[in-house]
């Protein structure tokens, strides 16, 4: 596998005070969907802006398909597609006119423009709305139009900054079904940012968890979840919990045992809940413990975030607050 995005010790300081990126290094492999997961203000958007040649980094370097993002910015721009966080379509034009404009900016030969635009619009299910002025589109339709625009030059790498922000679950699902179809038709690598845990878990091949401008963990979603070692088995029985704890503690793979907060049951932390549960059941049977219920708990990406960043992702600032902070910062400058 080839690394198509290579980031080395990237630093971005705004106004000599705000350290948005604090030494980021990462490699993105060809053909994968790589996610940047983190709370608002963590530096995800700043990283995307630097990699898409919008703003220069303060320190460090980055390469897109071997091209330096600063010295060879022109070449980088030809290789990438980009969907910003904001809804960035021109709402006073039709969908087709939006596409036509970008096809010209991206040097699509005039003989090919119509075919490519129609293909892209068809792929995102907007061909029948091509000649409707975009202000009459729904939020989800505008997002799909942006994705169609971003692929007009058949980019090798697609940057998506919060691609499903503000969309309802069905809208989000639609975006991802279009994107997966797209990846089948064109060979593409996707780098996306998100603060939706479930989305990061479902769609990404690998993830980097980013907090306060630093990458705190990288891996596949299941690797990351395993690495937290937070899998557990909870047993509810009539037997006194101290007895149950004693029995469970005798197993070598049980790391810790706790009473449940409501007093109904005992939880044992293990490395692999599926394997542990089999042995736990047989051991409890041997000791003739009458088990009323038994459940396995798998860590979520929320737990992963908690483990690596020390806070819960949901408790950090909302998107609206982050935008306010950003605006204030712009005013300061």
């Amino acid at each position, binding site marked *: 596998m080839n690394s198509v995005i290579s980031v080395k010790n990237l630093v971005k300081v705004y106004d000599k005070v705000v350290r948005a990126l604090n030494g980021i290094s990462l490699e993105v492999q060809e053909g994968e969907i790589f996610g940047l997961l983190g709370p608002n203000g963590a530096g995800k958007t700043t990283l995307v802006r630097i990699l898409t040649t*919008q*703003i220069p980094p303060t320190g460090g370097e980055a390469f897109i398909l071997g091209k330096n993002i600063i010295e060879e910015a022109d070449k980088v721009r030809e290789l990438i597609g*980009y969907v*910003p966080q904001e809804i*960035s379509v021109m709402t006073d034009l039709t969908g087709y006119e939006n596409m036509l*404009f*970008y096809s*010209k900016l991206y040097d699509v030969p005039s003989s090919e423009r119509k075919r490519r635009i129609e293909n892209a619009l068809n792929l995102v299910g907007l061909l029948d709305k091509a000649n409707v*002025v975009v202000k009459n589109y729904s939020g989800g339709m505008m997002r799909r139009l942006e994705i169609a*625009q971003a692929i007009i030059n058949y980019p090798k790498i697609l940057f998506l900054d919060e691609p499903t922000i503000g969309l309802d679950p069905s809208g989000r699902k639609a975006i991802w079904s279009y994107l997966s179809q797209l990846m089948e038709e064109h060979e593409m690598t996707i780098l996306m940012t998100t603060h939706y845990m479930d989305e990061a878990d479902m769609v990404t091949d690998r993830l980097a968890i980013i907090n306060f401008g630093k990458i705190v963990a990288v891996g596949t979603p299941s690797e990351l979840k395993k690495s937290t070692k937070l899998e557990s088995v909870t047993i509810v029985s009539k037997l006194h919990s101290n007895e149950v704890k004693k029995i469970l503690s005798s197993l070598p793979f049980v790391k810790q045992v706790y009473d449940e907060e409501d007093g109904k049951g005992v939880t044992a932390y293990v490395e692999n809940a599926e394997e542990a549960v089999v042995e736990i059941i047989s051991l409890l049977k041997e000791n003739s413990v009458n088990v009323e219920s038994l459940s396995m708990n798998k860590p979520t990406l929320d737990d992963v975030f908690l483990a690596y960043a020390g806070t819960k992702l949901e408790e950090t600032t909302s998107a609206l607050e982050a935008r306010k902070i950003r605006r204030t910062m712009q005013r300061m400058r």
Partner: protein
Amino acid sequence: MLTNYVEKVLAMLEVEVRRIMHDRTELYTRAVQPILWIGVFAPVMEKLRVVPIPNVTYMEFITPGVLVQSITFVSIFYGLTVIWERDLGVLNKLLVAPVSRSALVIGKALSAGVRGIFQSLIIILLAELLGVRIILNPFYLLLAAFLVVMFCAAFASLSIFIASLLKTRERFMGIGQAITMPLFFASNAIYPIALMPNWLKAVATVNPLSYAVEGLRALMITGDLATVPLDFLVSFIFVAITIVIASQTFNRIIE
């Protein structure tokens, strides 16, 4: 390389034309004020005979001045639209596209020119209906159109430069009037420079608006082209300087 550059600038102009085609209300509402100057202010002043002008009516005298004021207003808000596009993410997408920064600025500046031409056509048409006789020489009109585009591009670039300093819509809002109205009154738009006190004469002489008005007045009303080469030269220098400055500061808008 150069054709590629020109194609991308043209693509931006095409967008502006399509925008105007989709929604023309702004062109019409912006025509209201010039009509008040030409249709109400001018006839009253004419009766008072306070501004002595040889050979032409006062209404004819101020038509190019009012036209220039109107297109200055159109252009000075292009910086605001750039800030707006930054907030919407449109600008970010333009900056990621394989287009040079100066092509983006020239595209924006000439877009203002395109809108200025449409605005001028409406004002000229309405002025004709009010009794102003415009010289209908195609060569003169073509030169006038060229002057309008240069002037709009210059003010739009100036506006983009101001936007790169101010960065927010709120701060920009008041700027438009604060720049255009003083320039309008300190120019030959509604009275000849000869009538001004000396200090104002000095201001009017370095005011680029005076040269745009003078050139358009010659091409549209008097037909006396003696000053036109100087008017074009000044306008060209003005637009060249503002475009260069705006191209250098353009990126700062998103930082």
